[in-house]
């Protein structure tokens, strides 16, 4: 079985066979085991043990992994699923407004944009308060504000759409 794994901006091909994996033409023994009574997995690669904490992501093959003191967001798909996924991603590129959503429940402190504003990727658009700290939420891409659904002073749930954008290329 061949898996294509997107990790840390790279695509790594991992081929699974009887007792191990082949990565970059090199074959090593590899094994995944649970640690009973915990959510920890033990991955043994070429005899070396790595403790891994796994959180499942929002889609098939997506995981957040804590391994060797690093945190990775990975997507591991078999060849066929990878091909379908890449095709879908290419189609979605042209798609409509990208929302800024509330990453946690909290209170809207300030909305820094209005409908029609042009924003740059990374520009602060909404300030939310949670755990006594103010947090700035940023635009995901260059674009034009299509809708503002957040109102200062209101409480919102995690995942609430706050601002919608139309991604467009802006003049430099």
């Amino acid at each position, binding site marked *: *079985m061949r*898996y294509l*794994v997107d*990790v*840390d901006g*790279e695509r*790594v091909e*991992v081929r*699974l*066979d*009887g*007792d*191990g*994996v082949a*990565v970059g033409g090199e074959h090593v023994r*590899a*094994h*995944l*085991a*649970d*640690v*009973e009574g*915990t*959510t*920890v*997995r*033990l*991955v*043994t*690669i070429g005899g070396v*043990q*790595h403790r*891994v*904490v*796994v*959180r499942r992501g929002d889609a*098939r*093959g997506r*995981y957040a*992994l*804590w*391994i*060797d*003191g*690093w*945190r*990775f967001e*990975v997507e*591991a*798909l*078999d060849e066929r699923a990878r091909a379908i996924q890449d095709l879908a991603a290419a189609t979605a590129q042209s798609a409509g407004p990208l929302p800024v959503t509330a*990453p*946690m*429940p909290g209170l809207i402190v300030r909305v820094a944009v209005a409908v029609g504003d042009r924003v740059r990727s990374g520009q602060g658009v909404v300030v939310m308060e*949670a*755990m006594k*700290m103010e*947090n*700035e939420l*940023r635009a995901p891409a260059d674009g034009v504000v299509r809708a503002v659904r957040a109102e200062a002073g209101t409480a919102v749930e995690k995942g609430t759409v706050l601002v919608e954008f139309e991604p467009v290329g802006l003049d430099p």
Partner: protein
Amino acid sequence: MRPLRKVLIANRGEIALRIVRACRELGIASVAVYSDADAQAPHVREADEAVHIGPAPAAESYLRGDHLIAVAKQLGADAIHPGYGFLSEREWFARAVCDAGLVWVGPPAEAIAAMGSKTAARTLAISAGTPVVPGTTEPLRDAAEAAEVAARFGYPVLLKAAAGGGGKGMRIVRGAGEIAGALAAAKRESQNAFGDDAVYVEKYIEGPRHIEIQVLADAYGNCVALGERECSIQRRHQKMIEEAPSTAVTAELRARMGAAAVAAARAAGYVNAGTCEFLLDRTGEFYFLEMNTRIQVEHPVTELVMGLDLVQWQLRIASGEQLPFTESPVPRGWAIECRITSEDPANGFLPSTGRIAHLHVPSGPGVRWDGGIEAGSVVGLSYDPMLAKLIVFDRTREAAIRRMERALRELVIDGVETSREFHLRVMADPEFRRGEISIQWLEAKLPELLARKAPPEAVRAAAIAAALLADRDRRARNGGGPRGDGGGASGGGTAPRAPVPAESSWARAARFDGLRSP
């Protein structure tokens, strides 16, 4: 002497648990209080008694001073320990506790008041001969006066708009030649931004460190400095990492800073544990900022290098015990503390919430965990995001850093995002390792620290782990075995570590092929 028998702890989380432990070691009964959100919290269970005090919002539970006093009276407690935060530095609460005939485990209300506002504390420090950041209290009249004051303070100086904020109307002036132009610019900017052109001048502190001195004072006039803590690793004025001692403090400087802190504490009539905060500049000059009239979050690093239990001493001083020493002890070894918070460093330190699914706490030589969570704890948004403090101790700073790296690697918190990886990046940073830090260091360094790429071996291990997980999940979906992890290359046996092939590699290969060509 009036030995305490029962102490009500007006706090929650790790510090409440810390106080429960000190009480038990001293043979004092403890009473925990808890809001709706904390009914299952470890501090509640570990205390001898526990009382529900209201709903989750602190204003309706942990901040209801009168109610807490009533509960203490009702249960026959003879003292209240406020911990840090919440009501710990409220003068009125300290007074109300004493007026109710209870012992306040902290400084006298008058000392809290004296150190309560920065301006009052500054005036008090000046009267005690403790150096403060030199500055004018009246707006500057003209460039001539500015030049005269700046010469007195010594360059560089900082021009600051009286109405200022956000850096507007602020100018660093490095020599006499620049001051007239800088003053005109600062006045103009200030006038435009705030409609007020009043400008002050103060000494500009270059590359300052946040160094604080722990003091301990008893009710018999003994007041002792317990060395410094280096707290320069801060983000948005929140301390993240603290250590003791500091690489910037020599024995001679420690003695001078200690004397200055003791003088300020004495001037305030201080009793119990307290901390004087200073800025320390590159030349070794230090300036008093304020005094924290409570136990500090970072007190364990002092405990480890001084071999003292500060929380026990708070209780012993409150019960009328006398300090057995009057000389400052000499710090031994090195201690570092990392604050483990439920904040996501990869996502702008946004608070993360959830249920702790699994917790593995590091241990072994020289490792201390002061935590308020356990597996099953729910991390919400009602309180501070600090989950625990991980503290290490070793002979040297270098060894302590290696020990901290080891302990952070052992730590597993599954269920919420935490600052663990952030701390690992700091521990590995060459500047941090050399001790080249200031209070601006972290803010400037943060983007680089967070963008740091994992080494190729870690990326490769993550890729392999992900492929094995995805394969196991795929077979689980396809009903490929018990819990979908029947063994083999990607299988997880039920017994840890031991590879348990549940089928022959021939059968597996055949099955893989079958799945690949539908």
